[in-house]
């Protein structure tokens, strides 16, 4: 009954005034709604990236994960008899599955704090004249690439414990460290 009454009133308005108000139709709706997006540190973001172990080959710096090879504290390890290396050899493939202290497995870890299972892999935009860096799954030893990503990492599961493989073939020796941007990708496995 109430509904019918409302329709009648609207009908009267429509007849007398404009045709804007038909039965239950709307001509224009305009609604203000809020979008708020926070930028979180890697530890709290939807894709959690965390350092593992001591030695600062991996470290959270200013909220984001970064890598230094050799580590900033490499000169402290092995404890009591540090080796203090200058860098990687040329024309070589190195794998770093742990930080310099070897006190925890993995160099870094990936955890899914989003809402969908994701496949994880790394890419590198430019490898010209710089070492090639690829992440790998420390448990399986598998390189994680776009064509061969991790198994689906469930929401809240994990973490996926990772290391870095670094290929220095054709890369010249130099005093200055190479500055490389590695992209860690996490892509939902279903299209939904």
């Amino acid at each position, binding site marked *: 009954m109430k509904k019918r009454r409302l329709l009648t009133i609207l009908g009267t308005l429509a007849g007398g005034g404009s045709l804007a108000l038909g039965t239950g139709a*709307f001509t224009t*709706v305009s609604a203000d709604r809020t979008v*708020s*997006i926070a930028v979180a540190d890697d530890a709290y973001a939807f894709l959690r990236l965390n350092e593992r172990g001591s030695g600062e080959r991996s470290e959270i710096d200013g909220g984001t994960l970064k890598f230094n090879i050799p580590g900033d504290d490499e000169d402290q390890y092995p404890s009591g008899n540090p080796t203090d290396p200058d860098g990687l050899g040329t024309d070589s493939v190195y794998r770093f599955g742990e930080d310099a202290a070897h006190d925890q497995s993995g160099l870094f870890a990936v955890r899914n704090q989003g809402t969908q299972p994701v496949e994880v892999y790394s890419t590198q935009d430019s490898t010209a004249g710089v070492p090639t860096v690829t992440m790998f799954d420390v448990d399986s030893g598998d390189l994680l690439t776009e064509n061969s990503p991790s198994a689906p990492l469930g929401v809240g599961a994990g973490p996926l414990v990772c290391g870095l493989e670094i290929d220095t073939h054709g890369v010249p020796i130099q005093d200055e460290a190479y500055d490389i941007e590695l992209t860690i990708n996490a892509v939902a496995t279903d299209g939904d």
Partner: protein
Amino acid sequence: MKRRQLLLGVASVAGTGGLLGTGAFTAVSADRTVSVQVATDDQALLALEPTDGPNGEYATLEGGQLAIDLSSSNPTDAGGTGVNARAETTIEDVFAVENRGTQPVEVTLDPYFFDDGGDFVCVYPGSQSDAVVGNGSTGLEPVTLGVGDREQYDVFAAVALGASSLGGTVTVTADATN
């Protein structure tokens, strides 16, 4: 006698001007009831609601109003409280707009883009994702929704380093196409 004369006078005035009919008035004030039901966004004629999919978690209906909230006030079940810095994040199918009126409408979001010194966030219809995250950069078109039609919207955030938060108020407009 006097009275009859007056009536005649009135009659002639009415005949000339025509403005004052019998029972004319200068002002009337009458109260009538208009019953308008205001519904929550998900029940409204233009329905705005989180999707049923997993990424509906990033939208809320707090106080009956749709909000897109990627922050610590709406953490994911897994504990995520924001997008990563130095990262591009694409979240598909966060919320939906559905036309539950009786005419086709064109839906636009304004603004659909928030920029803060190069860090930005974009809210866009999933059917036009190529215009935002694809190779084309054609700009967004209004979404035409027939009666009962529904469009799901995506969110894209690109954060270089600077911003700690992004966003603002989006005006959702639906205009009847005829």
